[in-house]
């Protein structure tokens, strides 16, 4: 093989390989991928690596075996599940109303649903502290109508944490459900009505089953988000309602126990990732971005 032949080969390969289109795609995508890889994935990967490199899996098993941490994880999952259920019960009717409404009414409903997003999380919890306290609006109202004869304890309980969390997570639930419900062909409901089904029956046997994939998707999304909550449980709950993010912050920032904090972060991350993977297997992450054509 002569030098010219080799040169020829390389050239022909280059011609095949070099495609201006894929070069443009590379240029456009490279900053985002590199940025996320360096400032988001690498720190987490290093956290995982460091806490595993120190003493292997023993730190993890020690963490999981610790009864204090286990109960905190159990509390976190409980609060997450209760808040998700609350969001679903309150979010479904609103999402359905959004689906059947149109024009200006839908616009107004969407604005109201989106409005709370602009209020800081700390301040939202703060407003519940004012409302749910011993001499707050709720207790005063209940005293006034005579349901109770002395103030009841709402603040610093499981209930107050859930009230605060549902308020924050509800918009995510509503908007995800709404996006899913919009894809349901509503002519099916009309068909059911024509064939004599009363509205409630048409809803129960046609619309509701078709909305279930959206229900699962939205619930998992809300549940995952709820696991990382910190502010709400810290301000509205008692030490009994301590969530895992509070423990991690306490260990790292106050007690300076970095390896324990890292190990707990690892477990939290593992739970979150496991749910995301199941989510993707069952529903496909692409659906969240507005379908396959996104």
């Amino acid at each position, binding site marked *: 093989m002569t030098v010219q032949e080799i040169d020829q080969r390389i050239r022909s390969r280059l011609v095949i390989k070099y495609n201006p289109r894929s070069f443009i795609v590379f240029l*456009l995508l490279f900053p985002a991928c590199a*940025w996320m890889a360096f400032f988001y994935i690498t720190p*987490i990967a290093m956290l995982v690596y460091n806490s595993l490199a120190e003493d292997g899996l023993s730190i993890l098993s020690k963490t999981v075996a610790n009864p204090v941490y286990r109960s905190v994880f159990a509390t976190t999952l409980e609060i997450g599940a209760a808040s998700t259920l609350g969001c679903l019960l309150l979010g479904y009717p609103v999402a359905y109303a959004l689906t059947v409404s149109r024009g200006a009414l839908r616009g107004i409903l969407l604005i109201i649903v989106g409005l709370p997003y*602009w209020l*800081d999380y700390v301040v939202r919890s703060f407003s519940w502290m004012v409302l749910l306290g011993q001499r707050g609006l709720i207790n005063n109202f209940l005293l006034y109508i005579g349901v109770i004869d002395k103030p009841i304890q709402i603040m610093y309980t499981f209930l107050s944490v859930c009230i605060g969390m549902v308020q924050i997570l509800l918009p995510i639930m509503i908007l995800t459900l709404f996006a899913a419900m919009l894809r349901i062909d509503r002519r099916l409901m009309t068909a059911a009505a024509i064939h004599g089904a009363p509205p409630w029956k048409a809803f129960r046997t046609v619309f509701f089953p078709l909305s279930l994939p959206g229900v699962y998707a939205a619930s998992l999304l809300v549940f995952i988000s709820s696991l990382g909550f910190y502010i709400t449980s810290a301000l509205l709950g008692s030490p009994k309602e301590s969530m895992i993010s509070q423990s991690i912050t306490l260990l790292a920032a106050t007690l300076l126990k970095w390896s324990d904090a890292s190990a707990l972060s690892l477990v939290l991350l593992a739970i979150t990732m496991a749910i995301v993977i199941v989510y993707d297997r069952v529903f496909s992450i692409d659906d969240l971005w507005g379908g396959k054509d996104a």
Partner: protein
Amino acid sequence: MHKTSHSFALGTSVALILAYLIFPIIVVVGISFNATTALRFPPNGWSLRWYEQLFSSSEWTGSFLISLQVGTLTMILSVLIGVPAAFALSRYKPPGRKLINALLLSALIAPPVVRALSTYLFYVPLGLNNTIIGLAIAHSVGGIPFVVINTVAGLRSFDTTLERAAIIHGAHPFIAVITITLKVIFPSIMVGAIFAFMQSLQELLISIFVLGTLGSPLAVKMWEGVRVGVDPTIAAASSMLVVLAAVVFGIVALAKLATDARGSARAGAGE
């Protein structure tokens, strides 16, 4: 009859749920105008004293400045990095698209405390802790997905014949994208940018870890304030933020509405 009773039940429950949703906003705005120190709702008298206190306190204005710097930098970084990626994802359908989508989505739902802890430890050797740019970089990870989502949505409704027309008439494709496409989808990019700014403004844990001694952005200042004791100044500060956000968002929504109307008018004329 049957049908109306159903709609009535639905309407009532939806109204109650929406009331629950926006109740905290009403309470906070109410408290911010309260005349006394007591955190009472409904307030027992009206005054502007908490707003006066807010603007005359150098601590609050300092926090506001830090938040503004971090938020603006976050917004700029997110747009510069997110918009090109959105173009690639929506126009070229590159391989590995699913992985990139998963990466962006995961950044939105990753537990904040894990990100805070890992970013802090990662920043120690880099010397990025206690810097504004360090915090803005960490926040941009959460801002980029918002910019990508909104820009992809804008590009999907964009009529590509406009861009092609410009190219046919001799414009360089790059110039056509800058002068036509970016201009038309600008409101969508702005919506993404505002979300990026807002998530930076509200983010607490990364701010606490990364910005330890340099100063407190608003979220941290409010957090410390609520923990220490009762202070309606916090309510005043957050009411200001709500109004600010509502105004900016209203302007963007109107701009978007105007572009959409133009788009549909054009589509109508074409039919």
